């Protein structure tokens, strides 16, 4: 499995897990319908409390990244997060703000910052 942890990063473990799964899904490394390891298996592999894995999985499901089958495991969802547009925008806004602030601090122009974002979107390919 591609998931790994950096215990000294200061980022809570469950957030690290969530971010990695989201990234893997966005980059196409994990495909729709693919199974994630079971809570117990991943917990033992990463030496973390099973509750932490369960929590990360719950949040991923809430965010529409994965779906779970009762008693049957957790799978990558079909890429249609069931969130309202307004909620999605609300979630993304802090990241946008961060990008804007850092861009400004580094004295990048508006165009340069926007181009960076576009380049990253291009890397993810067409999914619209």
């Amino acid at each position, binding site marked *: 499995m591609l998931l790994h*942890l950096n*215990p*000294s990063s*200061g*980022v*809570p*473990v*469950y*957030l690290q897990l969530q971010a990695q799964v989201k990234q893997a899904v966005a980059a196409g490394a994990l495909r729709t319908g693919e199974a994630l390891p079971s809570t*117990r298996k991943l*917990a*033992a592999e*990463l*030496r*973390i*409390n*099973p*509750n*932490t894995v369960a*929590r990360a999985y719950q949040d991923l499901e809430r965010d529409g990244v994965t779906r779970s089958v009762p008693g049957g495991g957790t799978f990558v969802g079909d890429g249609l997060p069931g969130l309202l547009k307004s909620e999605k925008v609300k979630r993304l806004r802090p990241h946008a703000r961060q990008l804007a602030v850092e861009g400004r601090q580094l004295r990048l122009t508006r165009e340069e910052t926007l181009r960076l974002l576009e380049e990253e979107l291009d890397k993810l390919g067409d999914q619209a």
Partner: protein
Amino acid sequence: MSEVAIFIEGLSKSYGAHAAVSELRLKIQPGAVYGFLGRNGAGKTTTMRMLLGLVRPTEGSARVLGLDPTKEPELVQILERVGFVPQRKQLYGWATPAELVRMNKAYFPRWSDGAAAELAKRLEIPMNMAFKKLSIGNQSKVALLLALAQGAEVLVLDEPTAGLDPVMVDEILRTLIEDHISQGRTIFVSSHHLGEVEQICDWVGILEEGRLLLESRLEEIRQDFRLVIASGESLPVAKSTDLVSATTDGRFRRYVVAREAERFAAELRGQGATILEISPLGLRELFLHLVRKEDPCTPGNAGAKAVPVSSFS
């Protein structure tokens, strides 16, 4: 096993004028992996030794699986049902691990030869070398093997990874997690390695100078605890029961709040402060904020109020 695994109330231990543990209150649910954090000398070992009847409390009470360690017949049951890995392993030095296994086996009705053999193999323990000749890492593994094979309901581990190299630490953590997953044992583990605790535990208690500063589910710390950084001239000394600690650094003030960070921030804004950041904080940061008592803005020990609200409801 629905009873509380470990329950401590008003527990104190003094050595002369020195209070090693004072008025400790603690509650560990069955099946929890409870990380007992504190600096060196905070009272972690003394607390654990009181649970095992090795130290007599000056005041207060402790119950392990509902049993009182200060009463002889109940203590015998505790020793049978609780696996203890002390920091200083006082096992017979001349005996080999294989001999220690044979000696221990006789005392524990629920002893599992299968578990002992599997652990010996997986942890790569040299079973036929005298205990005193083993490395510290191997000695720790032997102590852990004995505790796990004993068929205990509760494991009390006093800094099980102290002095071990990273590979051994990783092996011990894996063993504990796998055991927890398959057996559902309650694990009470002391440490000052915050990363390890954050990894394997679901509850934490933070001890400082014999007192519990905080007891919480890790989940709650993740979800509700926030670091609020504010700036402004003559910032108000905020008084809130949700406030865990506050430190000042020039024009900036860092607040750790136990819940409702947004509301807390709004109050600060109302008093003219600029909020720079509201962010979740890791165990390491929380620990440092709690035990460094620079500029505490609540009377007494900062964070003490967080204890009853978050844990005894």
